[in-house]
């Protein structure tokens, strides 16, 4: 019983924690791309990376103020969106997918490369760029909460800000998608030529969507590194994008609250499984074939299994429309 409470508590803390909020933000951006516009962005982590490093380099390397770092980070995400979108948006959907996944990896290798070390800190990353964010923390120093939900004033501050941003982003996207703008964007997802034949400038709408989703990805990256006050390039592996996809599909692509709910459930499961395996391992109750191996990846194997089951039994996710998904094109 104790074990279950501990596991459950750990899972719940993670489900509502800063990481879930960051992933929710990234998934909201991905939802704009994939869920509403039908753009296959396989490099959402690239947008997070340029947002994070835009902030960190501005503040840590050049000594600029935090607000300027924020602007640089967001502008970097916009620039990346334009750079990736402009040549690919007139081509078939798969070109954008290939370009985004490649660009994200190129950026990661560039940042950790030796010549870039002076600028980016290389493999050591950059630290201490979020002090200004902590200085404006209105919460009096101390510890807040109860049980597993105990946070320092610093942790609570970034937690509140990130979730607030995720909610605001949800609201923004909800408002946009329900407007005539959203109608055009969804028509692009359904059939570009149909949209063109009705006088819609498909290229322009796709670019707007790429920029908006990329901007939200950049914001996610900024909040990710702001919470820990440190950035480290190995946190931006391609799997971040695929977790974001898992979250989006789990919550329901093209649904308003899907990304947030998906992020909460995803991190609940990942951390819950992890905590459970560790607890069982400590108690010496693991089956023989699992003893002595690294337990870290197992949770992700189980997440993969869960995702497969989901696709088989509930392809529309938690909040997607079953009716919508069953309609062939």
């Amino acid at each position, binding site marked *: 019983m104790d074990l279950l409470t501990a596991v459950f508590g750990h899972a719940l803390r993670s489900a509502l924690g800063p990481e879930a909020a960051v992933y929710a933000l990234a998934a909201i951006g991905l939802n704009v791309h994939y869920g509403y516009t039908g753009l296959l962005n396989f490099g959402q982590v690239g947008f997070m990376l340029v947002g994070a490093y835009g902030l960190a380099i501005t503040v840590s390397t050049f000594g600029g103020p935090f607000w300027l770092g924020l602007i640089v980070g967001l502008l970097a995400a916009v620039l990346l969106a334009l750079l990736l979108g402009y040549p690919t948006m007139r081509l078939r959907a798969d070109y954008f997918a290939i370009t985004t996944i490649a660009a994200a990896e190129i950026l990661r290798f560039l940042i950790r490369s030796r010549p870039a070390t002076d600028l980016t800190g290389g493999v050591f990353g950059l630290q201490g760029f979020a002090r200004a964010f902590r200085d404006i923390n209105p919460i009096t120093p101390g510890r807040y909460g109860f049980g597993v939900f105990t946070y320092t004033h610093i942790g609570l501050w970034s937690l509140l800000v990130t979730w607030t941003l995720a909610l605001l982003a949800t609201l923004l996207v909800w408002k946009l998608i329900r407007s005539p*703008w959203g109608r055009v964007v969804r028509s692009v997802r*359904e059939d570009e030529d149909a949209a063109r*034949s009705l006088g819609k400038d498909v290229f322009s709408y796709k670019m707007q969507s790429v920029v908006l989703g990329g901007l939200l990805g950049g914001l996610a990256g900024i909040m990710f590194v702001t919470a820990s006050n440190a950035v480290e390039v190995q946190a931006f592996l391609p799997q971040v994008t695929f977790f974001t996809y898992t979250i989006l599909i789990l919550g329901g692509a093209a649904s308003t609250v899907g990304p947030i709910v998906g992020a909460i459930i995803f991190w609940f499961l990942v951390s819950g499984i992890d905590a459970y395996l560790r607890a069982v391992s400590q108690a010496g109750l693991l089956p023989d074939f699992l003893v002595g191996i690294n337990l870290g990846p197992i949770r992700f194997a189980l997440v993969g299994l869960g995702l497969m089951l989901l696709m088989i039994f509930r392809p529309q996710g938690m909040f997607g429309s079953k009716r919508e998904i069953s309609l062939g094109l």
Partner: protein
Amino acid sequence: MASETTTPLADVAPVPGVAKPDPILVADGVRRSFGGLTAVDVDHLEVQRGTITALIGPNGAGKSTFFNVLSGFDHPQRGRWTFEGQDISRLPSHKIAHRGMVRTFQLTKALARMRVMENMMLGATGQRGERFFQALLTGWRAQEEQIRERAHELLVRFQLDHMADEYAGEMSGGQRKLLEMARGLMVEPSLIMLDEPMAGVNPALTQSLLEHVTGLRDAGMTVVFVEHDMDVVMGISDWVVCMAEGRIIAEGTPDQIGKDPAVIDAYLGTQHDEPGYTRPVDRSGNDDGGGS
């Protein structure tokens, strides 16, 4: 058709490339080839305003390719064409639609995962709420209601109003054709191009579709359509243009076209009729790229 004596086309000579009294669309020297295959090679074509013009021809004649080129969905190697007197030959497809020349597709493009009403409302042009920042405000709501009203009227006219809240993907093939036509009308075009409007439509719906097409002309619109079914063509068109191997080989009223030996040849093939006929080398009989 009985109306042909009253149309302005009565005095027009049935010759390929003939001038019309009041052309809305004029194409000159349009040539589109795929590799070594010339799919479209039209010297001159004029489409008379306010009429129904049918574009016929055997499979692979280049009708749909010509359609795609004129509507900006395909790009020719050379040629220019004007709409309402203005050169539109270098315009992207969406701008051509904006000018009032709207098309439908052979394979219907209903936006499956959107409601029928959304499909319709998408068609309206000049929507304030389609701009990113305006969309976040509320200034577009009044216009949105006007658009919804207009969409509803059109849905009633096309007897689709009972499906307004359904997904377009749940409609039958014929209903999708109707929806696509109605949606095109939301753009308020002066010329509508229908690519095989009757293809795959339940015969019970054909008559109603035909009535809608003639209704468009009677409302002052110009209609150009591609069609295979000769009965349909002869029944509703004011003017027929016949293509074969990318060229326009005949033009005229339905009666004139029905008797034109060149048209009969193109459809039936002379080689079947005349013993000892040898195929010319350039008449490979290939399809012009399929599905076009």
